[in-house]
């Protein structure tokens, strides 16, 4: 069991402060969804949690230990961040990419480990020898998610894992992430735009706006009509439908 906690965390780039007083906690297989308007600091927060960006102040704690003071190799085995696509023009195959992502868990030679399992979970069987350059953006997105699954890190951080995905794979990807987090006894921190997906899959939701966490807690408490409408600056209708479940949509604009 691994727990991730942020303590009075302030993050940003150099002198530019993006977020302050971030206090979040996840563990025991939980999934934390970070929502907020464009530019609210979702990516900044996720990169700071994943040790890619040094906190301006405060700490990111994994089982009580400061992620920035522990050895880089150990940190890499604890936290895994969904990478951006690899560079174009190098003829990198899907398998080569996934193997490289497993580096912290392997020795001198590249190893397959659970690469095949990750490919299967994301319905990418037969894609292993395909070149990353030739994939559609949705297929590439699934490969990026698979690279996090192929790593064995208990803490998984994914910035917009559902980007470019069709309706089926949005659900598929989130259920895979949630199941893996639970199976590893760790946690997943993801950013999302779809409040409905957050309500369906997340155990906790953090809503970011104007440089801080505006609401934090279980989805039912955070994803409310008045909270969402205030944060996004547009009227957002929320319904709990017995058949369709949780629905949150912006008020229909005038037809033009």
């Amino acid at each position, binding site marked *: 069991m691994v727990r991730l906690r942020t303590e009075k965390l302030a993050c940003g780039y150099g002198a530019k402060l993006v977020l302050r007083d971030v206090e979040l906690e996840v563990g025991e297989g939980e999934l934390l969804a970070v929502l907020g308007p464009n530019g609210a600091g979702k990516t900044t927060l996720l990169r700071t949690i994943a040790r890619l960006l040094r906190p301006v102040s405060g700490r990111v704690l994994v089982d009580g230990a400061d992620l920035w003071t522990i050895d880089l190799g150990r940190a890499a085995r604890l936290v895994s*961040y969904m990478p951006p696509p*690899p*560079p174009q023009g*190098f003829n990198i195959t899907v398998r080569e*990419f996934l193997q490289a992502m497993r580096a912290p868990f392997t020795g001198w030679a590249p190893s397959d480990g659970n690469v095949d399992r990750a490919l299967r979970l994301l319905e990418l069987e*037969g894609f292993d*020898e395909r070149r990353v350059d*030739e994939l559609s953006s949705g297929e590439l997105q699934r490969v990026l998610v698979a690279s996090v699954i192929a790593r064995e890190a208990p803490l998984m951080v994914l910035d917009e894992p559902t980007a470019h995905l069709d309706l089926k794979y949005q659900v598929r990807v989130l259920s895979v992430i949630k199941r893996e987090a639970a199976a590893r006894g760790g946690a997943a921190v993801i950013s999302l735009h779809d409040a409905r997906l957050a309500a369906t899959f997340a155990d906790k939701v953090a809503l970011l706006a104007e440089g801080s966490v505006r609401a934090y807690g279980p989805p039912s408490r955070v994803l409310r009509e008045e909270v969402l409408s205030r944060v996004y600056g547009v009227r957002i209708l929320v319904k709990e439908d017995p058949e369709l479940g949780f629905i949150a949509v912006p008020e229909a604009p005038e037809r033009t």
Partner: protein
Amino acid sequence: MARKSGTSRPGFLVVLSFSLMVLLIAMVVSLSTGSAGYKPLDVLRVLLGREGGPARSIVWGIRLPRTLLSVLVGAALGISGVLVQTATRNPLAEPYLLGISSGALVATGLAILTLPAGLAFSTWITLTVSFAGGLAAFLVVLLLARLAGGSPTSLILAGIAVSSFLSGTTILLSLLVQSKLGSFIIWLLGSFLTATMDQVKLILPVVAGVTAASLALAGRLDLLLMGDEVAVQGGVDPERMRRTAVALAALATAVSVGVAGVIGFVGLVVPHMSRFLAGIGHRRTLVLSAVLGGALLCMADAASRAAGRILLLGELPVGAVTALIGAPFFAFLLVRFGRRSQW
């Protein structure tokens, strides 16, 4: 749509043995090419010490150093190409992008212009001057890139800025050295005309050292290629690794330019050929790039001598040959493999 493979590659040992064979053949051809028409068998007998006389001094004194030097410079350029393409994550990058060639050229031009002729053309002076000039330009590129944030793109742009400025200076210098333009052109276009065993002994440890260091860093280079995020999470500081990679490439390239002038195209093409054949893993790609780079440049040098004789031009600059032969060959590979990879 669902295509199982199509990029399945031959085993690495097969590819490596084949490449080593090509290298060996290239060396034998190179040793047998020249105005004195010795057959490969004669050359072999000389090398085994079974033949004396003029053949001995020509093969040992002229052709062997030249062959070895072209192989070493080719290997250096091949490995430098891999390092620079990985560091910049740009498949179009090549060692000369770092400002090394243009820096070396400007320094050499200045030396030819200012030093007395006897001094300016000694091996040691030219090597030292061009090496220093190349590294100095590279350090400016590195500094600029760092000031611009240290990203792969900033490295490329800094390289272009410095190279362009120095290229302009080179043109100006070649006008000023007019009377000695002939010797300057050797540097501009690249040549092994002046190869000596001393040069071989000099660059051998540098090339061997850079190769060994790159191989030791192969795992980290794999990560660096995949992205800064992947590198950090693999326990590698991407910016430092990037600087280390380009510094190694700069070292190998600077000595290459120092002994043979500017030879284009090898550093760009060889890494692509290696990746086509062996995938992106740096352990394999680096080894293969050294072998293929050596073979390619050795062949190109032999071709430059043979073609020069046929065309009655004495000798063609090897840099022109690498471009003339290399570019169409590369275009062929591009179309061939590019098409195969589509379905």
